[in-house]
């Protein structure tokens, strides 16, 4: 549905996006993660047909942005961090205006249906300037959905929303995926990405540094393990050292919790467990441990920076 093939975008001497290649399939949510200025918004604007690529191809629903940007725009719905509404208009007039811009048939019914979906029925005839921040963002989502787009581009849509509204928005995004839409979510919110994204693309200084499922990204680097034990912390640490395993430890819930990395657990475990038992440590649990997406993200971005 969305295909970015070696897309580069320059603004004067600044390269905002460098040789970006990724896809978003129908019914898939892909999160675009990256620090400020990483090129997330530039990527979403190129896909949305607002910006042309300097090099490469951006293809949406089989149409190249270079060949027919208008047709691409007609297939995309865009929600930005700011609701960006004409505040003097009523919600009904605002949605009707965009319905006409997008040549929507049966606009009246579509407006009513969207207002019902987003719980905005009671405020259809109120001016947008009188809306709360959450309601404004809902109105922006209604605008983006007015033409029932195949592709949704969400550029930090939950910025400045309260937790309840953020959750409502997240549920809505997930429900929209069910209609086989391709959804690109540009976000800083790693928790949100971890919860709803099928795949994650990490950008750093305009270049893609990693693509994968949240699960794959959380397994980045050497395998990590967590060992819970009871006993003397000094003796346990010495046992780790004797087994040649470097660790970090903490006390949690009256237990000792050790974290360590090992390329081959089968090779490392016998010596480690023997050393711990010899030191009189009671081992309660040993299990592989995944990074949180946040830790994985920080690790990946740091590696890319170095």
């Amino acid at each position, binding site marked *: 549905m969305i295909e970015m093939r070696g897309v580069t975008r320059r603004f004067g001497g600044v390269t905002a996006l460098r040789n970006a290649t990724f896809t978003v399939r129908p019914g898939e949510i892909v999160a675009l993660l990256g620090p400020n200025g990483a090129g997330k918004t530039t990527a979403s604007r190129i896909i949305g*047909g607002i910006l042309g690529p300097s090099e490469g191809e951006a293809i949406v629903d089989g149409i190249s942005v270079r060949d027919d940007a208008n047709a691409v725009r007609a297939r995309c719905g865009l929600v930005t961090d700011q609701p960006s509404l004409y505040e003097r208009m009523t919600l009904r007039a605002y949605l009707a205006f965009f319905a006409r811009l997008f040549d929507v048939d049966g606009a009246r019914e579509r407006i009513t249906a969207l207002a019902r979906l987003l719980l905005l029925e009671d405020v259809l005839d109120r001016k947008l300037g009188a809306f709360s921040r959450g309601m404004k963002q809902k109105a922006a989502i209604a605008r983006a959905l007015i033409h029932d787009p195949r592709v949704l581009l969400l550029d930090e849509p939950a910025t400045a929303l309260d937790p309840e509204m953020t959750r409502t928005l997240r549920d809505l995004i997930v429900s929209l995926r069910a209609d086989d839409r391709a959804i690109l979510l540009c976000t800083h919110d790693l928790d949100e990405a971890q919860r709803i994204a099928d795949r994650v693309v990490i950008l750093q200084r305009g270049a893609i540094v990693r693509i994968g499922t949240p699960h794959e990204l959380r397994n980045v680097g050497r395998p990590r393990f967590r060992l819970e034990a009871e006993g003397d912390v000094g003796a346990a640490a010495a046992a780790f050292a004797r087994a040649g395993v470097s660790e970090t430890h903490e006390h949690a819930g009256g237990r000792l919790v050790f974290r360590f990395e090992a390329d081959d657990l089968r090779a490392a475990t016998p010596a480690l467990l023997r050393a711990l038992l010899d030191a009189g440590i009671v081992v309660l649990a040993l299990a592989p441990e995944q990074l949180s997406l946040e830790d994985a993200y920080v690790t990946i971005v740091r590696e890319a920076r170095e």
Partner: protein
Amino acid sequence: MRKAWLIAQREITWELFGDRGSVIRTSLFALLPIFLAVSARGTGGGGQRLDGALLGLALQAAFIPALTGVGLIASTFTAEKENQTLVPLLAAPIGDFDIVAGKLIGMLIPVTATCGASLGVFYVVSGWLYGWGRIARVLPPEIIYALLVVSFLYLLTAGSVALIVAARVRTSRAAQQLAGLVIGLSILVTALLGAGAIALFEGWGLVVLGVVLIALDVVALEIARRAWQRSEVIARI
């Protein structure tokens, strides 16, 4: 052009007349020609001096709304940039020229109507104060028509130039300042050209000036169309 009309219609309905403040600001233009008409009373001597004063004031009654309109046109895009409302418009399936034309038409129609209304009020108040016969002699239909056409052409030329320049700035204040510069320079140039044109070829120079103004309009609109590109505008938001 259908979508350009749609944008123009929205501008007129919701931005110019969408709230009480806008309506009040626009209605202030009704007061302007009344003051102008009354101020002609200060012209001593009556006769030809009063006729000349009435003609000059009629020109101002038609022209001042047009000058204000140039400022409005200049800030129409920057206001949308400031409020971020331009992004959804740029994301819609509309050609670049339709957006520019829609914005321009959305300002040209109400401002030209205000010019006409202002001149109409001036005509009525002057007729009531100085006699209907005198005002009919000073402002025959062809002069009224000429004043409106000149106001419109000026608005179109200066407005297009202001639009091009203002597309490059980020704030309404900067756009208004640029519009002020365009207005000042354009009045100076128009006045000089007008004076020169009257002196040349027994008044036929005025006709040439009119043709030049129309040609300038076409050129300014073409430059606006080429200069105003989505990619350029979005890069400045």
